[in-house]
């Protein structure tokens, strides 16, 4: 007997703005948040990114002064998203105190750490600025959120590259489904840093222009930054306290390629098993799905493999299932991507809105039959949607989300 898992709170920080309403407005308009890189100088093929606007990251923090001074941007993003989600869900101090906290992170405060490292190596600082080196441990954003918001249940920080926060959500949903937790805050947060930017660029994985997922001429991904948070809650608990059930996490699936450290499995074996396991766990056939929020990174390989997986699972029905890539608007936010895309998917279900794939100029002829929701968001009544994430090393996670009345 498993418990129903509700989503009762959402929070998000991205290039489209510092809250869920700003994100939703951007989905309707089809705004692209990918602009020339300003945070640091980079000499290479690409020079665009989806940066969080400056005014979003600066806000009052409920921590002591030394801890506040040491916050990285990733910590601030995580905290902003977590606060919005907890407020949205109406979690009081006692509900927060008992809640579990599962996070996804890939580089946390690497931007601050790499700068402290550079200064010490260049002789600008005689010693390491240890306070900045402390930004790096991946457990830091979750510790910041836990201590600032008083969240003292079980805690975990997952790092499976680009599926990190999707895994955090899956972990939280599993804990609730099995009756081990009543409230879980699931978050993902990452910030742009030179290491990641130069790394992806050296792999020639970055599109020199804003990324064009599913476009015939796509040349790679665009990096982004941000955070998202979801309050997951036992649905009975949520209803008993009068909280609004915004969506249900109906199922989740996790599977591994065991194929390559960067490339996806050529047939998407792990991604397919994750999708099938998520639908199986939800007890839903593929026909029930009305929208797919794709991983859609915009690399030649990813989009090909992803469409192949969707064709295998949805068959002839795929042209009638809208598929879109949020990464075309907010960039690839790495550890935050899964959570941001889960928030987008809940917004889609709740507001009857198909999120768009922007920057699409010419559809790849291999999938000219598909509805990729080009340019701007579109109205549609949705009941069930899936969102998929795949990380370097072949770590795949799929979530099935549904409107409460759809099940």
């Amino acid at each position: 007997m498993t418990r129903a898992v509700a989503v009762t709170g959402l929070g998000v920080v991205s290039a489209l703005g510092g809250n869920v309403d700003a994100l939703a407005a951007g989905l309707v308009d089809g705004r692209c948040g990918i602009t020339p890189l300003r945070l640091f100088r980079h000499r290479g093929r690409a020079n665009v990114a989806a940066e969080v606007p400056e005014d979003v990251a600066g806000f009052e923090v409920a921590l002591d002064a030394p801890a506040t001074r040491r916050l990285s941007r990733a910590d601030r993003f995580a905290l902003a998203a977590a606060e919005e989600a907890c407020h949205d869900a109406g979690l009081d101090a006692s509900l927060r105190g008992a809640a579990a906290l599962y996070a996804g992170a890939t580089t946390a405060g690497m931007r601050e750490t790499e700068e402290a490292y550079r200064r010490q190596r260049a002789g600008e600082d005689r010693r390491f600025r240890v306070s900045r080196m402390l930004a790096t441990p991946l457990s830091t954003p979750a510790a910041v959120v836990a201590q600032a918001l008083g969240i003292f249940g079980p805690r975990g920080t997952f790092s499976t590259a680009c599926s990190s926060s999707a895994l955090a959500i899956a972990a939280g949903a599993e804990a609730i489904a099995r009756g081990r937790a009543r409230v879980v805050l699931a978050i993902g947060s990452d910030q742009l840093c030179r290491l990641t930017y130069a790394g992806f660029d050296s792999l020639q994985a970055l599109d020199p222009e804003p990324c064009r997922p599913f476009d015939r001429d796509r040349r790679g991904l665009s990096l982004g930054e941000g955070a998202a948070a979801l309050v997951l809650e036992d649905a009975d608990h949520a209803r008993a306290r009068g909280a609004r059930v915004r969506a249900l996490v109906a199922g989740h699936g996790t599977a591994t390629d065991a194929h390559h450290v960067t490339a996806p499995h050529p047939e998407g074996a792990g991604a397919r098993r994750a999708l099938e396991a998520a639908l199986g766990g939800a007890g839903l056939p593929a026909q029930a799905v009305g929208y797919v929020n794709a991983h859609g990174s915009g690399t030649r390989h990813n989009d090909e493999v992803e469409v192949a997986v969707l064709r295998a699972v949805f068959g002839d029905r795929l042209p009638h299932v809208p598929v879109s890539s949020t990464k075309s608007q907010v960039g690839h936010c790495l550890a935050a991507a899964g959570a941001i895309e889960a928030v987008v998917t809940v917004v889609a279900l709740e507001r009857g809105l198909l999120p768009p794939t922007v920057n699409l100029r010419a559809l790849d002829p291999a999938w000219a039959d598909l509805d990729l929701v080009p340019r701007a968001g579109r109205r549609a009544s949705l009941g069930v949607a899936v969102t998929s994430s795949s990380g370097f090393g072949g770590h795949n996670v799929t979530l099935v989300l549904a409107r409460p009345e759809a099940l």
Partner: protein
Amino acid sequence: MTAVAVTGIGVVSAFGVGLTPFWDGLVAGQSAVRQLARARVPGVELGAEVPALDVRAFAQTPLARRIDRTSLLALAACRLALADAGEPLAAVAPERASLVLGSALGNLGETESFLDRLFERGAGIPLVFPNLVMNAPLSYASIELGITGPTAFLSEGEVSGEAAIAWGAGLVADGIADVCLAGGADELDGVLCEVLRDARGFTGGTRPGEGAAVLILEPQARAEARGARVYARVVPHAGFGVPSGVHRWPHDGAAVAAGLAPLVADADLIVAAANGRAALDRVEAAALAQALGPGRRPAVTALRGAFGDFGCAGALATAAAAMAIATGTIPPAANAAHLDTRFDVVRGEARRGRVRSAVVSALARGGLCRPIRLDAAA
């Protein structure tokens, strides 16, 4: 819930490659702390370094020849654990096998050389970048071992090893995996030693270290059916948070005690997190004393003095706790002078006697407790 058996232990430590040198060293009361070679920097001379590993002994695919050191430590521990358990992967479907690894800091050495080159020439190194992804050990090990079930990588500072083992135990207990490899790895290098020195991080008795430990976890019934040796059972526990500064040790002994009390109530052995830093040792001692209550004096040992202090040291502590249960031998505390006299600390020589249950007490900065409870199998 399915009972979770530990059927294999793989350890790569400053004592050497394998469980035997690790356990023999601990039981003999030896310390693997020596003059540092690779990681030595002015002001940090002593530490627990792992001897150089032969990549080809552990990595078989051409891809894995590019493996980084932290991933190699983890992969080596995985292979040693599988061999110790009688190669259990051969008998399960790949999608029913799981892998959960942890690391506090991941691949330090190549991250630094990548940044050095980036700052000098403005460009990254494409062959190295995949190794800098935090979950590289998970990727390499899943590819090398052909594991396609649910996998996870956890980073939890000083309790990264315990976090991974607890998560893996949960996957077996919930019936999601028939075999799960769970553990962690962290490496030591010169830059980390410099940072620790500049932070005055090793003023206590314990020295920095490195290493990896991985446990093979299986449903106990399945393990018994195949005639596997069962070292101990892991009792899944989700851990808990307590108030703390973001980068500080927990300060509220009572909050830690409340979480530990049900775990230590009938434990025969506590493997303490104690690492010689006053802030940690003080709160841990207060919490244990309160959790145990008056009159309860289980054996206490602390082993970071022997194999060094690092993010995944708790995975090695858990391996030692499983061995203590399996062999009825408790290794003595290393550098134990700082341990609280309120406790029955195992000092000097190993102690023989039945250990029915052991708790690895795990505390991390930022206010996270990730204790592991192990029970005897029978």
